[in-house]
């Protein structure tokens, strides 16, 4: 057993109102610069819909993620190492920017420089790739927002395979929900495995997956290797970029920008302890329907004394182990079993999980004139095939029983709380019918419905002091340049080489907070490798 900590996220889809605040704030912070115009580290998709990039979920087309070979061993779906190297000059599976959309801006200047006229001046759209006018825009961010264009395009949604007729036939009463997506920061990241340069890595402390901007050589296999299409290629810098899980904020104990600004309070961030030795076996289980349980089994119970002792021995600080006990992510994914991984069949063991929405069921019932009473909802969950099958294709590798189980627990929580709050009755039956205790029901209610800030985000600060005597480097040694007045060891130009950025495991190196280097004018990213370098 090798215990590692992972910062994970859960999103409660029932509460997402599709306002795109997360996307906009994320864009303002991370991708508001040349070459990154088309990138959305966070985007919100309407489901059913084509998604971004279009049809990203169809791995027969894009070849992202992992698969099992004939002997049952895990391998990259796009092919092995030699095949990758041979196709390095033209990646056969790379999306073109039109699969996302061609980014544009407007001639805003026209609005104030146009001569006096009877007509209002118009700001024409201009491509940010060529500068040419774009009078015929046929794709953009959230192009199929709120089912726009759905009658023509809904059957192109890969998830409607097999249930197309039903989805189409009931379009007038169609169910619809929003799916906010960021990088999954997978336990078994296929982007990292696909990167020939070794520029992508998973941080051992918190599991955040990053691109080292200085090591990236622009071979593009991470973009095609990620089944979620959440690694992007910056066409100005020629380097890959991705969601950083706002690591500077996470390290400071703060939630990501997308979470902090979420008006629906749908997001939860917390630690999960997991056994790094069991990751590969969990990703290799033969039956796709077993992947969910396999991943849950990789998670370790932070209340188990043996796990805690082992975690401490593996260098996880005590306050992190405490934070793991209070983790809302572990609670929703493992204790209450209402959160599910996105597309577990990609075998990457993703770490952004989703509470499936009960609302398609409820709204479908209300269409039929029912009050959404839990007594009605229970049989409806059993009977309604379309939303359940659709959610199963999204969150449980097509196993509808998993979805029904989660929806039953969510409905039971609602029913129980409604009885308690509205009727003042204490009824243990509803919770029991869904296999839950009353205490669990009420805890879950507190987490999902009350959703206090401190319950949603349980993020321990990074232990910078474990790196080295950082105070010396930052403070007392701030004047420790060559010939300077500092007194904790001479820093010479030669020692600069060891101080750069991150060290690979076992290599000597130091944390990069050295004022000498900053003063030396070297353009360097901070220690985590990504971030400022792309800016």
């Amino acid at each position, binding site marked *: 057993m090798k215990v590692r900590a992972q910062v994970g996220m859960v999103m409660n889809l029932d509460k997402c109102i599709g306002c795109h605040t997360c996307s906009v704030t994320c864009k303002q912070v991370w991708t508001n610069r040349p070459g990154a115009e088309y990138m959305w580290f966070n985007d919100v998709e309407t489901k059913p819909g084509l998604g971004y990039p279009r049809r990203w979920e169809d791995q027969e087309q894009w070849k992202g993620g992992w698969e099992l070979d004939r002997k049952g061993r895990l391998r990259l779906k796009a092919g092995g190492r030699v095949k990758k190297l041979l196709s390095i000059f033209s990646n056969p599976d790379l999306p073109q920017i039109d699969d996302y959309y061609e980014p544009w801006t407007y001639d805003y200047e026209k609005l104030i420089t146009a001569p006096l006229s009877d007509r209002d001046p118009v700001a024409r759209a201009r491509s940010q790739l060529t500068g040419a006018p774009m009078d015929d825009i046929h794709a953009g961010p959230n192009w199929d927002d709120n089912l726009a264009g759905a009658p023509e395009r809904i059957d192109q949604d890969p998830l409607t395979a097999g249930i197309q007729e039903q989805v189409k036939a009931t379009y007038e009463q169609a169910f619809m929900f929003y799916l906010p997506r960021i990088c999954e920061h997978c336990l078994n990241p296929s982007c990292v495995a696909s990167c020939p340069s070794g520029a992508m890595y998973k941080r051992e402390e918190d599991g955040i997956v990053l691109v080292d901007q200085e090591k990236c050589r622009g071979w593009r296999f991470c973009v095609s290797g990620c089944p979620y299409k959440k690694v992007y290629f910056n066409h100005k810098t020629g380097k890959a970029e991705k969601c950083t899980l706002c690591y500077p904020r996470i390290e400071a104990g703060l939630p990501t920008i997308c979470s902090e600004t979420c008006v629906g309070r749908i997001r939860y961030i917390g630690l999960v302890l997991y056994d790094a030795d069991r990751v590969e076996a969990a990703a290799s289980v033969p039956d796709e329907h077993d992947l969910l349980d396999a991943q849950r089994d990789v998670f370790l119970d932070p209340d188990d004394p043996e796990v805690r002792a082992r975690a401490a021995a593996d260098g996880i600080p005590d306050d992190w182990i405490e934070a793991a006990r209070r983790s809302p992510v572990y609670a929703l994914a493992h204790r209450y079993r209402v959160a599910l991984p996105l597309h577990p069949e990609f075998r990457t063991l993703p770490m952004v999980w989703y509470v499936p929405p009960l609302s398609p069921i409820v709204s479908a019932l209300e269409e039929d004139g029912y009050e959404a009473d839990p007594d009605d909802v229970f049989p409806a969950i059993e009977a309604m095939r379309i939303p359940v099958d659709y959610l199963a294709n999204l969150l449980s590798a097509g196993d509808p029983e998993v979805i029904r189980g989660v929806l039953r627990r969510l409905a039971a929580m609602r029913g129980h709380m409604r009885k308690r709050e509205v009727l003042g009755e204490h009824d243990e039956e509803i919770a029991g019918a869904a296999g839950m205790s009353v205490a669990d029901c009420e805890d879950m209610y507190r987490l999902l419905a009350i959703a206090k800030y401190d319950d949603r985000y349980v993020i321990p600060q990074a232990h910078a002091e474990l790196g080295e005597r950082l105070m010396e480097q930052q403070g007392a040694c701030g004047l420790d340049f060559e010939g300077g007045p500092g007194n904790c060891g001479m820093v010479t130009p030669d020692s600069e080489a060891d101080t750069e950025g991150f060290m690979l495991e076992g290599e000597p*190196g130091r*944390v990069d907070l050295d004022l000498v280097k900053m003063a030396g004018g070297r353009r360097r990213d901070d220690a985590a490798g990504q971030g400022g370098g792309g800016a």
Partner: protein
Amino acid sequence: MSAGDVLLWVILPYVAITTFVVGHWWRYRHDQFAWTSRSTQLLDRRVLGWASPAFHYGALAAVGGHVIGLCIPESLTSSIGISEGFYRWFAGIAGGIAGLVTLVGFLGLVYRRTTSPRVRRTTTRTDMLTYFLLTVLIVMGCWMTFGHTLFTSDPYNYRSSIADWWRSIFYLDPNVEAATGAPLVYQLHAIVAWSFWALFPFSRLVHAWSIPLQYVGRPYILYRRRYRPASVAREARSR
């Protein structure tokens, strides 16, 4: 030996080699962020699917041919029983195929770069200079292979002349006569090639050194530690 000869066949090579070496050292140390293939596949995948592999594989084969032709002296090959005639046909046919594949791929890439507005816009001045030098080098290379080696009654044996000069540069005893006796196209090819090597470290060509062969042998998932336990850190510091 005129001053012009010294300039072209002695000074130019050494300046180019110095620029090549120092330039790479400087670039690697100070410009990791721009060290990339600068791929434009995302912007436009048209033509690239066949042209890019053709150009790159052709160019790698051509580089291999140059290494064999320039580095291995004729005396060595003849001593193991390879006749000049046999060598000429081998070099001509293999080099001809590599040259043609490179040329066709290169034309495809140039066509794509000039006709795709998105790709054209990413083209820098250094790129244009690189493309110009590559055009001259590839066209002259094909011309030498087809005009002076394959389809000629009087094949030119570059291995007994200009290759000697090339090796002599690295012995620090430049044999200028070996170069000045070569046909004009060989001379021009060599001069342009030295300019090309001088430009190399400052252009996108540096991605050639980043062919990620280490990928074959490394574990799939890479981890990095940000902070190490204080004891380990102190140990590393004292080293």
